[in-house]
Every structure is written in structure tokens, then in C-alpha cells.
């Protein structure tokens, strides 16, 4: 079940723009939210060990059984984000590239550089497709 959240991080981002953007994804079977005060962005960052950051341009996968308790949003099974001009993944999401020099310091220890921003689509497919097969087969991890 996809959950899409619009968050104001760039010039021009506003509720109205989010409303317009959300129309493009109306066919997706899931709810859409407006995180105008970046509360969820903060919580997502905390959940992946990057407290102090506001998470955005980020894609997170949670397995069946994952629950958001009073302790907060659980860490995802896999996550990719665009940060610092590269694509970073939480540990174990994808193999790290050799050069980790562009890994944002705030993510040191919790994520790896896994590829170039231009390859985001392919990298996301590398994460999503195996998970789709496993979940379709009834596996939860």
C-alpha cells in the first residue's frame, strides 16, 4: 500500500502546489498527505538514524507486520533517498559504491552511497522488484 506525502522543501512548494501534484498520482491506490510543518520528514529522518535532517525525496519500504508504535515510526526494511547529488540507501538496501566521499555526514553509519542521482529509477527498481516477488510469495522478510 503506497502512502504519498508532499512536503515543502523547495521554493514554490505550498499546499496548492501539493494539491496539483497529487492529481498526477490519483490512480495510485493509497492516501496522500500534506506535511506542511515537516513533522513527518523529521520523524522519518529519526527512524533511519539521521536525526536533525528533514527527510524528503525519499522512498521507504516496510514489510508486513511493521507497526508505528508510541515509540515512533519503525525503521524501514529498505530505503533510498536523494541527498548531496547522489542516491543513498539505508544499510543493506543495496551494495555500496566504492566511493563514499559524497555520503552526507548526517547519514554516516546509517546509510551508504549506492549510486548516482541519474540512476535513481533503476536503483529503485532494484529494490522494489525483489521485495515485490518476496511479498507476493508470502514472505515477510
Amino acid at each position, binding site marked *: 500500500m503506497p502512502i*504519498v*506525502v508532499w512536503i515543502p522543501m523547495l521554493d514554490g512548494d505550498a499546499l496548492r502546489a*501539493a494539491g496539483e501534484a497529487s492529481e498526477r498520482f490519483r490512480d495510485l*491506490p493509497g*492516501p496522500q498527505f500534506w506535511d506542511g510543518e515537516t513533522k*513527518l520528514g523529521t520523524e522519518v529522518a529519526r527512524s533511519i538514524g539521521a536525526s536533525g535532517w528533514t527527510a524528503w525525496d525519499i522512498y521507504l519500504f*516496510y514489510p508486513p507486520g511493521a*507497526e508505528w508504535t508510541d515509540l515512533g515510526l519503525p525503521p524501514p526494511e529498505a530505503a533510498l533517498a536523494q541527498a548531496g547529488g547522489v542516491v543513498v540507501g539505508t544499510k543493506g538496501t543495496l551494495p555500496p559504491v566504492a566511493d563514499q566521499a559524497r555520503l552526507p555526514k548526517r547519514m554516516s553509519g546509517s546509510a551508504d552511497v549506492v549510486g548516482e542521482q541519474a540512476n535513481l*529509477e533503476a536503483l529503485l527498481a532494484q529494490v522494489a522488484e525483489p521485495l*515485490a516477488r518476496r511479498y507476493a510469495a508470502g514472505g515477510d522478510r
Partner: protein
Amino acid sequence: MKRVLVLTLLVVAAGACKSKATASPDASAATAAVKLSDLSGSLDSVRAEFNAHRREARFLTLLSPA
């Protein structure tokens, strides 16, 4: 261009988490406005939605609308 990429990403990712849902809107959905729930008050609504589908895989993305 970016919107096309994002849509492609969402479709790919949604495929991993589609469970019982369908990506084909019915006639009424095609004419209704997309409901955009505001999280400014609290995160309770997104938390409830996340937990309501606990038995399924879930995909969460945070995107800038610009």
C-alpha cells in the same frame, strides 16, 4: 521530466506494495478531487493509515511538489 520520473518510481514502488489494491480508478474516482490530508496538527492520521495496513507491505515516499 521530473514528474514523469517520479510517477514511474511510484508505480514501480507501488508494485512492491500493491497487495489487494488496484491502480485502476473507477468512474467516480476519476472525477473526484484527490483527498490531501493535512499533517500540520499531528501525525495521527498517517500513523493510523500506516497501521491500518499492517498485514501488507507498505511504501512511503516524501516528495517536494515543485
